[in-house]
């Protein structure tokens, strides 16, 4: 059995979540829009999940819009608010370390004539609220900042930014896809108008997400069709997925003491891992040393290609990631690391380890032993000169 250290990509479905979902794939298999009994039963599952999630984040159930995942929630927030608010202005503010779902949505708006401000971050990946204040204008309609970074785990000063945006007409969107598994989410403390969430980052199923949309926030739907989700997201609901989303949220957030005990356990595992990794030559921690997700440990390693390292560790039975799974198909170094001022050459050697409920101390030691095994041979080859050139 492989050691799985990639919970930021997907945190595997928890058994009680699967159990909650199963009836909605079998006996309760109706369409929630149908009027008959099967339809009503399916609708009940969606309603209960909506209530559960709303309760955890301090929202009203009607303020939750279910989507096909975190990326769709981000798209709906950025483009939905961007296009709905053109009467007031066409200026959007975000940061250089956002997920591609945000950055590429913003880029589409920019191509349609919107003005876009992409704020810089410090070497830990943090945005300065002062920069947000300076960028806000009368024409600004949306500020989008992530709660915590998916690659390096750095938290953003969300409440401070929320306070600043509150004084303007702009809406405040928080991408909270990462981090929802370990800390309380309070849309009111954040003063957020929109918050993106995803199920599979906290042990729910893939392909389900949600966007919190504060009452009174104008939103242009991005899918045209039926009147589901109060006309904000057309299409038949993914009932079993939504039920699983609700169950996962309940499981993680039902007991705040258990949640913070688990966060502390993960944090101390990360410390053990960090100390072990930093004992290797040429390993540098990325992201904020303290103010980061409790289950994220990310580093850059000199003299290796991240993809090669991940393959080598996989063959030793340790599953890891180089930065974000969403961009691992590309050969460009991570935009997050580059924005943090990390040298492009070094950024190629990034490794992200993200822990979950099953992770143990023994796993940390096994990971370090695997690295000890593969790192010397990966580095040795980098130092080799190519054979005497025979141009062809």
């Amino acid at each position, binding site marked *: 059995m492989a050691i799985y250290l990639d919970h930021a990509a997907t945190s595997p479905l928890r058994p009680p979540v699967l159990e909650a979902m199963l009836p909605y794939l079998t006996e309760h298999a109706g369409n929630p829009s149908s009027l008959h009994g099967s339809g009503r039963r399916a609708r009940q599952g969606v309603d209960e999940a909506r209530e559960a999630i709303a309760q955890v984040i301090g929202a009203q159930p009607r303020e939750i819009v279910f989507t096909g995942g975190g990326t769709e929630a981000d798209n709906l927030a950025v483009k939905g608010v961007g296009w709905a608010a053109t009467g007031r202005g066409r200026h959007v503010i975000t940061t250089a370390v956002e997920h591609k779902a945000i950055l590429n949505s913003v880029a589409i708006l920019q191509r349609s004539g919107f003005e876009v401000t992409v704020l810089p971050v410090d070497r830990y990946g943090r945005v300065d609220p002062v920069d947000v204040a300076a960028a806000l204008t009368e024409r600004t309609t949306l500020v989008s900042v992530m709660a915590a970074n998916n690659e390096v785990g750095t938290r953003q000063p969300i409440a401070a930014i929320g306070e600043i945006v509150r004084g303007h007409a702009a809406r405040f969107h928080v991408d909270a896809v990462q981090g929802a598994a370990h800390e309380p989410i309070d849309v009111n403390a954040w003063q957020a108008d929109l918050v993106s969430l995803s199920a599979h980052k906290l042990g729910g199923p893939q392909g389900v997400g949600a966007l919190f949309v504060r009452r009174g926030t104008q939103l242009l739907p991005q899918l045209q069709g039926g009147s589901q989700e109060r006309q904000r997201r057309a299409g038949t609901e993914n009932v079993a997925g939504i039920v699983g989303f609700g169950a996962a949220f309940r499981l993680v957030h039902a007991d705040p003491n258990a949640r913070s005990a688990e966060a502390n356990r993960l944090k101390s595992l990360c410390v053990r891992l960090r100390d072990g990794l930093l004992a290797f030559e040429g390993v540098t921690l990325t992201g904020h040393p303290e103010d980061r997700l409790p289950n994220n440990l990310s580093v850059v390693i000199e003299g290796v*290609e991240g*993809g090669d*390292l991940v393959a080598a560790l996989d063959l030793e039975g340790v599953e890891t990631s180089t930065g974000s799974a969403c961009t691992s198909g590309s*050969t460009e170094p991570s935009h997050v690391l580059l924005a943090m001022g990390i040298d492009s050459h070094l950024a190629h050697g990034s490794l992200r380890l993200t822990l979950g409920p099953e992770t143990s101390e023994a796993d940390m030691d096994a990971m370090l032993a695997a690295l000890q095994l593969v790192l010397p041979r990966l580095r040795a*080859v980098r130092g*080799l000169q190519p054979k005497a050139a*025979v*141009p062809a």
Partner: protein
Amino acid sequence: MSRVVAAMSGGVDSSVAAALLAQQRGEDEVIGVWMRTHADLPEGYELSRSCCSPDAADDARRVAQLIDIPFFTLNVEREFGERVIDTFVDAYLDGATPNPCQACNQYIKFDELLHRGLAAYGADAVATGHYARLEHRDGRWRLLRAADADKDQTYFLWVLDQDQLSRTRFPLGDLTKPEVRKIASELRLPTADKPESQEICFVPLGDYRALLEERRGYAGDPGPIIDVDGTRVGTHTGYAHYTVGQRHGLGVALGEAVYVREVLPSTNTLVIGRRDEIAQRTFTVHDARFTAGEPPRERFDASVRIRHRAPDVAAEITMVGRDRFLVETAEPVWAPAPGQAAVLYDGAECLGGGRIARSDA
């Protein structure tokens, strides 16, 4: 237990090579690797016939799933750009004919995969879908022609040395192409009926002129076309747009077919000749390499092949220093093209080879 890396291009040959290895693996572990040689094209572009397109990656991944081996992508974009594409372009600028498939084998499949790939995957050997055979006899590895003479690819493999040959496997060496296709369809591999890749993978429409301009800023200056007597008979668009043996695109009407005989970069001149004027019996080869590490003798007999699928010709080889040799063929060979490989054989064994030198170099 040992680990073998199967280089998978997404074509039928490398698919079957990987499948055969996986079937025979026993204690061994087989790992499929697809090499990313260039960046994905934006949506809407098609490069489907090339071996390294994103579609090919999909095919290779599906095959790896079906034969149940781990599958990884090795990014060699930078190396491919520098050592295959730039080398390709520079060959034209040098008045030579490039040999990109051989360069890709040498630098990407063998150098990069053998060194970096084996390190990454902790493997001992690389297997490819080339049609060639290996034999260990009398204390050294010998590179032998494939059982299927039509498909033999030793012409592209002459650069391999003993160290590389000792860590290479060619699972298809004893098979014919129809047998390979049959195995692929029996295993229901999605690549079973895939057509042969034809074009050079990084020159989508065969138009390398755009690449010369893009990578080296060479737009081409018009210059003289002369015949073997030195008489000017026409004008060309830039010497690097032509290769030795080329017939089309000269714009010269002399009443019979004429071909490029020489490309002279220093004077931006093309020399053309009639068919019988471009055959030669002697030419020099540089950058010589021998699979055994050294030539059999200072002077020896061998059969020589000067282009893929061309017939072999008997020749006498005379070494000139360590890495050059002179070839004297028993009968004239048609248009030995500078830059192309001249590969030497002793019966079925590939002894090595080198690159044909420009006569004025």
